[in-house]
């Protein structure tokens, strides 16, 4: 296998990471002013800020790899849903606070494994971004797993609601560690980790966190979701409609 990655695959790989952070960060920002407590409002805003910061680094890099002169803003604000390459899980609506926590905890665990592995990437720029993001992600996971335990092992009502959210969102987790040809070519080039090798570590962490939260792991559901290939649920378009409104209505508007 050649050690030189196809530029297109390299661009798409970095774009997926950036889009997942951007979409999840945008979702979290929808909580600002609406969270159940001031402290959680601040926490979700802080998580959002970190994720959007990671997205800026990743999308700037993706734009350079693409080589068509698109910067972070062009990629964030001027693409339509089918061009977004985020994980399908990230675009799912916030629902109640418990559902937001479940979604966050599932993706935090995925990012922990992926960023940890990427710190050893042959792509030194990606490795540097991952090392930076990993420190922040540890903080995020600590927050989300802490709330998962409190809600799961809380009242009958909180347990029931967070278990329902887990049951609903679980079907999107099959995508997290299912490699396609882009993941495989990046892995062969030494840029990306083998997703199938990371899956058992994620799974073990999930089981430990669920045990602490007295929650039940839903059965595996292999239904394929392909957000990272641009096939999204209807929710992404609505979210982008709000996120991109200003730049679409007033092209080139500046703060």
């Amino acid at each position, binding site marked *: 296998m050649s050690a030189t990655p196809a530029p297109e695959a390299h661009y798409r790989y970095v774009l997926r990471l950036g889009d997942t952070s951007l979409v999840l960060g945008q979702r979290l920002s929808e909580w600002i002013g609406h969270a159940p407590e001031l402290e959680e409002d601040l*926490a979700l805003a*802080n998580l959002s800020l970190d994720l959007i*910061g*990671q997205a800026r680094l990743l999308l700037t890099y993706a734009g350079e790899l693409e080589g068509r002169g698109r910067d972070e803003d062009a990629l964030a604000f001027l693409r339509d849903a089918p061009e977004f390459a985020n994980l399908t899980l990230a675009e799912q609506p916030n629902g109640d606070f418990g559902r937001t926590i479940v979604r966050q905890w599932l993706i935090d665990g995925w990012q922990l494994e992926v960023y940890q592995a990427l710190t050893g990437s042959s792509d030194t720029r990606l490795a540097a971004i991952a*090392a930076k993001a990993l420190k*922040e992600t540890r903080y995020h996971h600590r*927050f989300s797993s802490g709330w998962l335990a409190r809600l799961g092992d809380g009242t009958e009502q909180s347990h029931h609601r967070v278990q329902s959210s887990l049951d609903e969102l679980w079907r999107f987790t099959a995508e997290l560690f299912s490699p396609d040809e882009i993941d495989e070519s990046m892995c062969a080039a030494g840029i990306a980790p083998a997703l199938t090798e990371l899956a058992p570590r994620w799974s073990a962490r999930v089981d430990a966190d669920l045990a602490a939260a007295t929650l039940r792991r839903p059965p595996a559901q292999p239904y394929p979701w392909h957000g990272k290939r641009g096939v999204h649920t209807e929710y992404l378009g609505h979210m982008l409609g709000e996120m991109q409104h200003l730049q679409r209505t007033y092209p080139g508007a500046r703060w």
Partner: protein
Amino acid sequence: MSAAVASPPSPERDEQRVWELLGGVPDPEIPVLSIVDLGIVRYVRHGAGGCLEVGLTPTYSGCPATAVIRRTVRAALDAGGCADAIIEEVLSPPWTSDWLTPQGREKLRAYGIAPPEEAVASPRGLWQPAAVSCPRCGSGATERVSEFGSTPCKAHYRCTACREPFDYFKCL
């Protein structure tokens, strides 16, 4: 500033001068700290072309202060006669709160923000933070209200002795 040049310019003197300029650039969110105190100036050096290069690293990926700091540094360099100096963004190794200078830690405490208590060479600093002393009364009887605070770099604590809430500069 005197226009007289006391001794001939040298690369070391230029670099020293830039460090002094940067020492006067405040962090926009914690203005008692300079960016040098904060440990985000990674280097001042002469590059291959003989140009002065200033390496800045962000504290958190999404910290909104990063762009403000860059602009303020640019203005300070321009005003200080170093208009041709180049500002570079350095991501690796990532910033850690261990890079706060000892003076920076004392300035934080005096300002009412508890400085990070523990070196984070090991990840334990993240998981099990040491007892945080109240920056107002010095008591160790404090409790964490939230791991997140008014800026990405701070957590929210309160002192159970003097009953004052305070910010804690997080270990990262």
